[in-house]
């Protein structure tokens, strides 16, 4: 067991975002967290990275309580990939990815750190844009740069907040393939908050479906992404078609 979440509760001021969330996540798998807007996907990710501190419940990573991790220890264990936002100040791709080495750095940045950054850039096939300004890149490239930064942390767990939002279909596939590749090659556990149910079913080993802060269903894609579940959670009727061994969710209408 990589991560065990038990009875997690989190509230923003008066709004309760997570209610009694209990999930087990295994090593080296892709877990997709799906659910409508505001169902608590991002909040869940932020709790796992201790960006937000849950009011109740426990999170164990490798059997150790998250509360006992120092901030630097978490930074070395869990990498967080936020949604792409525009940078206010200029920064090159290399500088952005180098930030991922922050948990390991003293004041000086060694040759070894730079080598690690170059290795990550190469792994994601973005070494050719290393010296470009982050803001000048396309959305897909920016997303890969942010994944690269998280990988430079050498984490065991990668949290991705809607990594395919605002990307065209080619880049959506590319980004998901990259996640699949690093999970396979590096044995990383990836937890992906995602809206696209088709991408989720295609790439995730398991799916956690959330509704208003609670886990509605969890398990293998074909068990969770059923027409009944989707209708209950999203209020949309769908048809599931299997084509070439891949399941496709076709939205029909409102019930």
């Amino acid at each position, binding site marked *: 067991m990589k991560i065990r979440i038990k009875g997690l509760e989190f509230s923003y001021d008066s709004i309760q975002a997570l209610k009694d969330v209990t999930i087990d996540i295994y090593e080296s798998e892709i877990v997709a967290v799906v659910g409508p807007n505001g169902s608590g996907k991002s909040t869940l990710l932020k709790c796992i*990275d*201790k960006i937000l501190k849950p009011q109740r419940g426990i999170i164990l990573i490798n059997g150790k309580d998250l509360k006992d991790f120092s901030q630097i220890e978490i*930074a070395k264990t869990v990498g967080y990939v936020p949604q792409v936002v525009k940078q206010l*100040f200029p*920064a090159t791709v290399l*500088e952005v990815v180098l930030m991922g080495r922050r948990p390991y750095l003293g004041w000086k940045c060694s040759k070894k750190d730079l080598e690690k950054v170059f290795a990550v850039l190469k792994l994601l096939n973005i070494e050719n844009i290393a010296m470009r300004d982050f803001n*000048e890149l396309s959305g897909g490239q920016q997303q890969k740069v942010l994944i690269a930064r998280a990988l430079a942390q050498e984490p065991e767990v990668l949290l991705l907040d809607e990594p395919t939002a605002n990307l065209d279909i080619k880049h959506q596939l590319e980004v998901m393939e990259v996640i699949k590749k690093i999970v396979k090659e590096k044995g990383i556990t990836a937890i992906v908050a995602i809206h696209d149910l088709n991408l989720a079913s295609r790439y995730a080993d398991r799916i956690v479906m959330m509704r208003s802060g609670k886990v509605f269903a969890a398990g293998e894609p074909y068990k969770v992404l059923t027409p009944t579940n989707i209708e209950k959670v999203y209020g949309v009727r769908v048809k599931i078609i299997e084509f070439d061994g891949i399941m496709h969710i076709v939205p029909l209408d409102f019930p």
Partner: protein
Amino acid sequence: MMDTTLSQVKREYERYIGRKLLFVIFTSTLIIVVSGISATLGSYPISVSEVYSIILKCLVSNPESTKESIVWNLRVPRILLAIIAGAGLASSGAMTQGILRNPLATPYTLGISSAAGLGAAIAIILSKGIFVGKYIIIGNAFLFSLIPTFVILALARFKGATPETMILAGIAMMYIFSAITTILMYFAEPEAVKSAYFWMIGDLGKSSWEIIPMIFMSLLICFALLMWKAWDVNVMMISGDEVAKSLGVSPERERMFIMLVSAFLTASIISFTGTIGFICLVAPHICRIMIGGDYRYLLPASALFGGALLLTCDTIARTILAPVILPVGVVTNCLGGPMFLYLLIKRKKEYW
């Protein structure tokens, strides 16, 4: 194939770092050259060779003649004060922009200057007619200038204020303090109003050997502390608070620390010089356009460039209408403004 691109990138990165170092060396040289020129200029005619022999002589013994005294007790401290003040203002400006993630943020937008102005005005106006010890004005300006910073830090600490709220609170305080200053000036004696007004424009006329070590120590300590935080500011500026946390940085704690150090540095300078504006906004931006945003290089570059800029402006202020000495604040605005606009228009890529 792959590895050739990688080694190309590595070479490119080395050149990129090299350019930054080159800029730092260039600005250092600039300071030395401008100092050398500035020492020879002034209303009292002293030849260039004489100036240098006086400086060399006075390094080991006390000045004796009038000429020696002019060079050593007037020009040299003024040059040093210009460099130190420029460096300090530019460093605190650069750091404030970074931690608040706002290109307009400087210690001034956080209300420091108007608070210092009020402090000085109170000291000047309330002690009218009586001899005003210059240290009363300096001390009062210094104490007042720290008020807005503490208010903002309290807001952040107890109300969880975001950087945006902090800036808005700073601007609100700026208006409050200038309003109180205006009321005070409205009812004060003309002489006191005049000297309070001149204090606020800011100039380096109060330079003397007495104050140099004090300000220099303050710059040295604050700069070292800011430099120590260069990585954390990089992280906060590039990634925002949430990602900063996930990278092991506490944005709230670092922001408080850096604001406190920058405010102290700014206050310790402007309480001697008056409110010399603009350097702390413009110098970091010019350096950012030149060498990019990495604070490990940007901070020292901004400090050096700020020093060079203020020194150049002061040299012009002393000589352009000689024997009249213009307040340096005016020259910084007249020179720095167009320079900044030019760079904004000429810059090749999107900046923010």
